[in-house]
């Protein structure tokens, strides 16, 4: 085998310029293809990450009726005992994060806007999404209950038992309503089972959320405050499960789903909770796959042209090698090795170049500006182009080029199989 490898390798370099052009074309295709996918995946990962962390969580336990009727009526009881029970369901559940949320009207002196009101435990949210780090003005409301968040009454004093009434408003909503820390915000809506829900809250801080849609409309209250407002003491609308590793999500979902069977609770993954987002990602990726295919078809034809020329140029040599006793299958193997060596060299160089470019973009993400940034933000994306370093992309591009090489080498193999030694030797 060593002799065949040496022969193939040296044959690759018989026409150095041509070989380098072919290698460069492959490397360039790999670079472009991975870069394209990396930018797509990077954006998607960031979008999913943000949506999952700020909106649905990776996994969420909720009442089975909540999907059809997302109101506080379909909240469920949650306390220390339930928390322990959920944590015990799967060893890879790192933490549970309780939330109660509903849509309400937010009003100030100037007007009224629709708002997503979320009762949260800021410290647990901090672990999930670094919420408190997103503060751009003011401060977060005080939170003294480090437990399940179930004992809201112990947090604050006052007539409602929960004072001071403070809220943290997302930057987009604050801008739309011209709110600043210290301003008063009225929340009006419906609580659990038709109870009227209204209250005045002092804006203690403003957070900039990376999900634009959420940034436009979110009001954070402390969990006890929100429960009190919605007349849903000891209830939550969702219980987010934070996995130790994202890859554990499906496994945890399966286990928890089995354990919740027969109850009124269910568990859903982010894919189930955001099917539209998943569809959008698939659609967006399809575009990048189509471009990759076009790229590889173009490169493939170039590569094929090289192999075609090489096959025709070397007909006599093939004839001589067969004359002296080289078996056709071994000659085919040599030609395949040559094609493979050129491809592998191209892929390796492509990988190296891509790694360098991606590492640069990891350090210096591409910032979008102007109309493009606006339109990206309209989709709920941050106006940056993050990149993904998923090794799967590198592997898949390597495999594509491998199969391309196999496909292309079929031509000289077929020629060798039908080669007439006499004609070839005379050519």
């Amino acid at each position, binding site marked *: 085998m060593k002799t065949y490898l040496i022969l193939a390798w040296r044959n690759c370099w*018989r026409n150095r310029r041509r070989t380098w052009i072919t290698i460069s074309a492959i490397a360039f295709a790999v670079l472009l293809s991975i870069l394209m996918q990396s930018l797509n995946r990077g954006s998607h990962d960031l979008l999913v990450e943000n949506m999952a962390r700020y909106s649905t969580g990776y996994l969420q336990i909720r009442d089975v009726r909540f999907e059809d009727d997302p109101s506080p009526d379909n909240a469920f009881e949650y306390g220390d005992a339930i928390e322990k029970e959920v944590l015990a369901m799967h060893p890879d559940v790192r933490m549970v994060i309780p939330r109660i949320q509903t849509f309400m009207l937010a009003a100030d002196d100037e007007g009224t806007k629709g708002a997503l009101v979320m009762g949260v435990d800021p410290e647990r949210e901090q672990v999930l999404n670094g919420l408190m780090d997103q503060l751009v003005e003011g401060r977060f409301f005080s939170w003294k209950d480090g437990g399940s968040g179930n004992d809201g009454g112990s947090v604050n004093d006052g007539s409602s038992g929960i004072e001071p009434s403070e809220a943290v408003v997302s930057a987009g909503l604050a801008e739309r309503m011209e709110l600043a820390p210290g301003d008063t915000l009225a929340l009006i809506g419906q609580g659990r089972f038709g109870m009227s829900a209204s209250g005045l809250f002092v804006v203690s801080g403003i957070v900039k959320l990376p999900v634009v849609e959420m940034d436009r409309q979110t009001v954070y209250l402390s969990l006890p405050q929100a429960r009190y407002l919605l007349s849903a003491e000891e209830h939550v609308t969702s219980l987010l499960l934070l996995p130790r590793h994202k890859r554990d999500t499906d496994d945890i979902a399966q286990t928890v789903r089995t354990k919740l069977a027969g109850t009124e609770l269910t568990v859903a993954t982010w894919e189930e909770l955001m099917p539209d987002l998943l569809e959008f990602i698939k659609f967006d990726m399809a575009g990048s796959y189509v471009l990759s295919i076009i790229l590889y078809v173009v490169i493939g034809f170039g590569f094929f042209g090289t192999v075609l020329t090489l096959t025709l140029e070397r007909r*006599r040599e093939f004839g001589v*090698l067969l004359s002296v006793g080289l078996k056709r299958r071994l000659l085919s193997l040599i030609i395949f090795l040559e094609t493979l060596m050129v491809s592998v060299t191209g892929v390796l160089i492509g990988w190296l170049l891509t790694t360098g470019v991606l590492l640069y973009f990891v350090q210096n993400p591409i910032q979008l500006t102007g109309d493009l940034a606006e339109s990206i933000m309209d989709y709920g994306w941050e106006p940056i182009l993050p990149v993904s370093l998923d090794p799967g992309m590198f592997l898949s591009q390597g495999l594509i080029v491998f199969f391309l090489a196999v496909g292309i080498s079929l031509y000289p193999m077929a020629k060798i199989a039908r080669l007439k030694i006499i004609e070839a*030797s005379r050519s």
Partner: protein
Amino acid sequence: MNKKKEVIRTESVSKVYNPDTIPVHALREVSVRFDEGEFTSIVGPSGSGKTTLLNMIGGLDEPSSGQVFVHGQEITAMSDRERVAFRLEHIGFVFQYFNLIPVFTARENVSFVMFLQHRPEREIRERAEQLLVEMGLEEKMDSRPAEMSGGEQQRVAVARALASRPSFILADEPTANLDTVSAMNLLDMMARMNREEGVTFIFSTHDQRVIDRARRVIRMVDGAVESDEFREG
């Protein structure tokens, strides 16, 4: 009575190209025998069928009719795969255009055939060096064909043909692309191999220098043997 051992025998070998359109009779009922140790030239004008006969004997082409036997084995009845293996073990080829592997050195070119025969590495190395020394190429062992003259390349080609210890060597116009000195050197080498080691050589040629050195001359005209002349060695 001929006491020499038969190496090759052709029986009524004919070859017709384009039988369905404009038939070209390259060989017509050629029956000829070659014995061990011969130094034979097949001569004739272009298109007389000498190269076609060589191709039939070498198992590179199949006759339209007739049979070819090598050491009593009918190679015309063998499959393509069997003929490849047979050629590797029994036949050495020298071509008009040298046809060395351009990316291999002289040593590697000579070794390659033995490598295909799965000979031990040490034997391959020693025999390749020995043959190249015998061909006067000790200085060129690690040179590639592009770094050698035509005569040197053809001597490497002869060494390659000899490397597999074949029963006979078929040489198609081996001196056609060589100057006189190189041609004479090559012929000297081949004659010495024939004389000292008993290697059987069969040439197709119209080079008078080769014809003059041959101990047997077969003349072909229009695909048939016109004369078969044995000379004193």
